[in-house]
Every structure is written in structure tokens, then in C-alpha cells.
């Protein structure tokens, strides 16, 4: 995780620096706010990864000499199919249409989104597809 965290911390350092330079040469608040935000965007996950790197050390995918056997064990659980992303997507679609065409789209939108959120949570807890 070390290189990963360094990339994000690099983002933080660069934009922290640029943000300072920009503020003290322009005193323009909009751009400075965005640069500081970008700095934080690098800082938060970057330091989190660094923290975990210190705890975990080098994973097999961080080591030059790792063999495929070193990765043995459960990689991850992947759902192979699920209807809920589609339902959630259509719910979001209806929701934005509500903003454009009128509030009567709002009710099916909320219905679809709630159903999908419940469905996807249940699917994850059950560990299989519904």
C-alpha cells in the first residue's frame, strides 16, 4: 500500500502548495477553495492507506518476488448477477426527470430507489442473488 498512499499524499502536497501560491498571488476565493478541497481529497485516503500500510506491511501484490501461490486464499466475493443496480439506476433516472418534467415522476422514483436499496442490502446479507 505504500506506493498507493504516496500517490495520494503527492496529490495532497502538490495542491496544498499550489493552493498556497494561488491564494497569496490572487486572493481569489473560488479557486483557492477548490484547490484546498483537492488537497484534502488526496490527504484523507492517502494517510488512511499509509496507516494500513504500517499495520499490514507489504501485501503479495506489493512485492516484486511474490508468487501466485502467495495470493492463495479468498480474494473477494463477487456477485455474478444482480437486478438491483438496474432498478436503482431507473429510480435515479425517474428522479432527475421529476426535476425536469414535474413532480409526478417523483413517486415512482422514490419507490424504485427504496426497493433497490432494500433489495441490494438483503442480497448482500444473504450472500446470493435474489
Amino acid at each position: 500500500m505504500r506506493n498507493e498512499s504516496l500517490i495520494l499524499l503527492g496529490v495532497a502536497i502538490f495542491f496544498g502548495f499550489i493552493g498556497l501560491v494561488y491564494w497569496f498571488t490572487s486572493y481569489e476565493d473560488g479557486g483557492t477553495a477548490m484547490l484546498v478541497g483537492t488537497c484534502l481529497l488526496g490527504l484523507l485516503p492517502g494517510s488512511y492507506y499509509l496507516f494500513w500500510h504500517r499495520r499490514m506491511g507489504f501485501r503479495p501484490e506489493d512485492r516484486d518476488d511474490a508468487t501466485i501461490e502467495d495470493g492463495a486464499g479468498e480474494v473477494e466475493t463477487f456477485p455474478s448477477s444482480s437486478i438491483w443496480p438496474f432498478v436503482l439506476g431507473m429510480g435515479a433516472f425517474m428522479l432527475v426527470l421529476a426535476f425536469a418534467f414535474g413532480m409526478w415522476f417523483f413517486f415512482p422514483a422514490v419507490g424504485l430507489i427504496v426497493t433497490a436499496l432494500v433489495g441490494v442490502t438483503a442480497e448482500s446479507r444473504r450472500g446470493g442473488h435474489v
Partner: protein
Amino acid sequence: MTDVITPTTTGDGAHGPSVVDVAGHEHEEHGPTGLLKWVTSTDHKVIGMSYMITSLVLFYFAGIMALVLRIQLATPSSSLVSFAQYNELFTMHGSLMLYLFAGPFAFGGLANYIVPLQIGAPDMAFPRLNALSYWLYLSGSITMMMGFLVAGGASEFGWVAYAPLSNATNSPGLGPDIWIMALVLTGFSAIFTGVNLVATIFYLRAPGMTMFRMPIFTWNMLVTAILILIAFPVLTGALVMLFCDRHFGTHIFSVQGGGSPNLWQNLFWFFGHPEVYILALPYFGIATEIFPVFSRKPVFGYKGMVFATLSIAALSTGVWAHHMFTTGVVLLPFFSLLSLLIAVPTGIKFFNWIGTLWRGQLQFSAAMLFAIGFLFAFLMGGVTGVMLASPPIDFFTHDTYFVVAHFHQVLFGTAVFAGFAGLYYWYPKFFGRMLREGLGKWHFWLMFIGFWVTFMPQYVVGLLGMPRRVAVYPSYLGWQSYNIISTVGAFIIATSFAVLLWNLWISWRQPVPCGDNPWDAHTLEWFTTSPPPHHNYSHLPPIRSERPTWDYHHPDSPAIAHGEGRPPRGDKVLVSP
């Protein structure tokens, strides 16, 4: 149904390097079939393919709009379309090409399909989030196209939607609302894809696939994903503010209410300039995959390439106001310097590409031709880009056809030349069959000629003072001849895309099967079967350099990357047997 990937260790020392199974069970697809299978699929390959097909369809739509625009401009005061229709057409041409084709084709389509394969992962880190990204993208695209169907027509304020032109007074009607909502949907789609790509690349690499052994395409997609996370939330936020200004009585971008229209430009371009690199970096990555394979050499200056990509991304986020030089209220030297500095890492990339070709054994497949076409196109776009980074020059070229020619050369050079290089290169991987190489070369040459014929006259007419986004122009200024040449070029390009359609059709109807690795390629995705099985790999080769498949197929070729990837004495130990 859920697949639990449980690697087992069954060594296979029969031939060359040992190959180890990473999965102990059959990788069969479970669950529904037919249309329901497509709707419920969370497989990154299915989602990636859906992205690519959708974005290509939108690319053809936007291309047809471009042809209408070019016919309109072939005569000074054509009445083919009205002023309003003209404004709608170029707004939608830009929106479709930039938001819905060039970006999603790369980070939604190719990256989705290729990145997990290149790092030896069974899928993206969050498959259901990935599927959600696609549905948001598809519904956003449909929303965008609906603009043409509503009363008052599609939005007419250009793809940049400058306030206060985009407020409720100056752009009334449903079209602009639909445009905003379409971009909110696709914005979230892009953010989710960005999160997914970062998590996949950080957590799902195969053992031994260190960061500095990842293929450059994967590196560029990682950097693109970080740029997406920096840029797209700003756009989505700005669009919500714009919507509030239009409907909820806020005055964020209006002078009358104490707001600042300039803030829109700051927010938009803080998204907009990284967006340009979100569109360009994936395509740099594609070219960087293709040059080494068809030169039969490793990428030259791999680490320099990685750091060049990182610094392009970093600098690109600090240069947003170079689109605003003529507003008169931005800090010129700061943005000018950072903009000029981008030329340095871009130059490093150019020299690394040339270094990869240098002393290779170049094979000019269609993919390689497109990648070389990209080099020429992007060189021209890059040189004029440096000119535009200088405020005094930008003052008299801003918003003229000079800028139009510049960014078309950059974006056509990357998204179209390198994008179709990627299509010709990875098509055998997607389907296990070849695209016709001969037709591919026809496609390339027509497009290459059409490209220069279309855009070079636009530089000249821009310097003569022709502004962009005009439907008519004075006839006594001598602009027409340049515009006619440009229109002819646009039709040559259109012909080349008819050839592509024919190629896709004939290659599908009369398939020419190819092996798993027809190009003798380097990276991991060519190790698995074509098309790859569900969850990608039944076994993996040892990963000891950034080109494991090449190492596996060329056991006699000296490995190039030991430890730090740098051989002990320059390149001298790397002579082939």
C-alpha cells in the same frame, strides 16, 4: 448467485515458467439468460462492452450533427438550419462528443473491460456499483437526447453553459433543464466508475503485480480515475447550483442578486480542464500499449512515462483559468506558466513513444497505423496548445476557429485516432475474431487525410478572425474557400466511418477466428482466452516484469525488469539472443 474466488495452488512445471491455478472451480456463468442476463449482469466485460457500444452509437449521432454544421458553414449565409437549430446542434455535438463519447468510451468502456484483465483481477472491485454506473450513463444519454424532442428544443448555450446565458431568462424552456439533469446523471456515473477503478487497481492486483509493473494503460486509467474524483464533483455541484438559479430563486451566478457569473467559469473550468486530460490520458495509455507490441520492444522509459502522466494530471488541475484569459480578472502569469509547463511531461511522453519505436521491428497493423496517426495529430494539437497558453496570443485566437482547430486536433487525435487504435487492437480480445485489416487500413487512410483537410484550414480562417459558434459569416472576407475545404474534409472523415461500419458488419458476419494472442502482445490480458471466461483467469503466469505474457511466450528473451525494473548497465545486457 455469488462466485467466491478461492485460489488453490497447483503447480504446473511442464513447460517453462510455472503456471498456477488461481481458481479451484469451473467459471461458468450462472443465472438468467437473454435480455435479463444483460440487464442483471455485473460482469465488467459485459458492462464495458455495453459502454463501448452505447458511446459509439452516440459518436455517430454527434458526427452526423457535425456534418450538418459543416454543410451550413460551406456557404456564408446558408439557411439549411435556423440560428436556433444551429446553436442546438453545436451544443449537442460538443456535449455528446465530450461528455458521452470520449470519456465514457475510455473510462467506462475500455478501462472497464481491460483494467481488471491487465492486473489479473476477476472483476472490478464493486461489480454492482459498476453496473449502476452504466445504467446512470445510459439514462443520462437518453435524457440528453430527449432534449431534441421537448418543446423549445435542446439547450443552445454551448457545451460550457456560461452563466448568465444559461439562466432562466436567457435560456428558458425544458431543453436546458434536461441537459443539466443528463449531466448530473452521467457525472455520478463517472464518479462511481472513478471510485471503482481506484479500488480495483489498489486492491485487486495479482501477486507480484506491483505498482511499477502495471501496464501503462492501467497506470493512465488510475490517474484518470483520480482526476475524475477531483473534477466531476465540482461539475455536478456547479450544475446543481445552476439548476437552483434557474428554478429555486437563488442568485449564485447572477449579478442582480449579488452573485458572480465568473464563478460559473471558475467552477466549470476547474472541471473542464482536468476533463480534457480525463479524455486524453486513457488514449495516451492505449497508444503506449500499442507501440511496444508492434515494435516488439518494451515501453521506452517506463518510469519516466509514469511520472510524466502523474505530472500532467497534477498540472492540468492548476491551469483551469487559461480558458478565461480574456475575462480580464484572472491571474495571467500563474496560469500561463503552469499551462506552458504541461508541455514538458507531454514532450517526455512524445520522446518515450519515439524511443519505443526506435530500432524496433515495426509492423503496420491497422492498430499501429491509428496509433502513429495519433502521434502526428497530437503533435500538431500540442504545438498550437503551447501557443494558446500565452495570454497575448490567446487574446486574439480565443473563441476563434483557431481554438476550434486546436482542440479538435487534440481530441480527435486522442479520442478518435488512439481510441480506434484501441478498438482494432483489443477487438480480437473481445470476440476471439479479427477485424478485417485491409478495411482497417482504408478506414485509417481516409480518416487521416480527412482529418488534415478538415482542421488545417480552420487554423487559417481562425487567424483571419472567424469566431466560433457562428451560423453565418460575412461573404466578403474570403473565409468561404477555407470553410468549403473543411467541409469536404468532414465528408472524407464521414466516409471513413462508413468503412468502419462495413468492417464491423463483415467481420461479424464472416468471422476470422484468431488465437488468444494474435499480436504476440506483452500484457496480462492476452494470457487468458479470447474472449476471456467469466471471472477472467483460470490460471496466471508468474509476474516478473511489466510484460508477463511476453516473458511467458519468450522464455529465451532476457527479462527486462528485475527489482527496480532497471538493468544493471544501461541497455547493454538486453541484447536478444
